[in-house]
């Protein structure tokens, strides 16, 4: 019995070390300080990632817009060139008297050779790209979302469309009639 009591006392004293363990003063403040720091770090990290995400989104949109514009330009450029190419040869050649008149006035006349050199570059560009010539210019593009919405609105509520005003009617111009000069006037002018 005495041995049991003595053992209990020794064990209790041994466990008291754990029971009565005390941290260094200011434990709560240190913990709170650490938590505040952690909270600030998390907040700043959140802002940083938000800024990075926003910048990335802007970059993606910019790249997408740039790529879209480039694609449109590439589609339009050959059609413009190919439309222009046949125009030059179809220009009516200056008649012989007119050419003689221009030569007399020292005006340079484009020869067939010089015209061909002028024309060679764009024609070659058009043929080298070998892009299909669109039937219409500008080439039709798919409707934008706003345009589709406007079209749907116009189909469902046609009354909201503006009525064609009188100003939009086709202008008809009467033929101009100029009276021929009389012989008397001609004589008078001829004397002068």
């Amino acid at each position: 019995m005495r041995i049991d009591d003595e053992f209990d006392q020794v064990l209790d004293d041994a466990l008291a070390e754990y029971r009565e363990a005390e941290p260094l003063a200011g434990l709560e403040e240190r913990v709170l300080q650490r938590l505040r720091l952690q909270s600030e770090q998390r907040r700043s990290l959140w802002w940083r990632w938000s800024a990075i995400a926003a910048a990335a989104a802007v970059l993606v949109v910019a790249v997408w817009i740039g790529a879209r514009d480039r694609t449109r330009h590439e589609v339009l450029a050959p059609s413009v060139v190919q439309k222009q190419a046949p125009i030059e040869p179809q220009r009516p050649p200056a008649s012989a008297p007119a050419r003689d008149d221009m030569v007399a006035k020292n005006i340079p006349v484009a020869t067939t050779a010089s015209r061909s050199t002028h024309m060679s570059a764009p024609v070659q560009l058009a043929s080298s790209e070998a892009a299909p010539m669109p039937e219409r210019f500008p080439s039709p593009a798919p409707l934008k979302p706003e345009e589709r919405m406007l079209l749907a609105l116009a189909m469902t509520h046609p009354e909201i469309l503006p009525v064609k005003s009188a100003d939009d009617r086709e202008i008809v111009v009467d033929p101009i009639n100029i009276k021929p000069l009389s012989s008397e006037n001609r004589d008078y002018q001829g004397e002068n």
Partner: protein
Amino acid sequence: MAEADEWATLETVVREHARFVFKVAYGVLRNSHDAEDVVQEVYLRVHRAGTKGVEDMRAWLARVTFRLAVDRLRKPQAIDLPEAEPLSQGPDAEHVAMHRQRVSQVQKLIATLPEELRYPLLLSAMEELNSRQISGVLGITESSVRGRIFRARQMLKEKLAALSEARR
């Protein structure tokens, strides 16, 4: 506003339970610095996870602390050696010295107990924890907690007696 409320709750939890959390951590680690590190880690987790749905805050904190401390114990650590206390002078000096020696022996014997007996015994030393809360911390039944504490005491008594016999 919600953030301010959350912070106020957290501050209350820190001020009410930080010392208790330290004791639980120290009971496992027996090292003040490591125990304080565990306290910091516990509250960082509380901050991250929040305290919504926690019914028994003390038991929940004890469980989190215990697990973190045991994890830390399995890593290499510095040993916190207790400072040697000066021997007292006087007629009872010999008796006091002998008592301290026995206490020191028991502490070493506690450290040699298997974990399943040592942890219930150490947690039972925390006056703040009852057997139901200890069972929640350890994930065993209350009757198992009581049985393990009893077996730990028996084992310590036998070892101490064997040690005393060997010294005679």
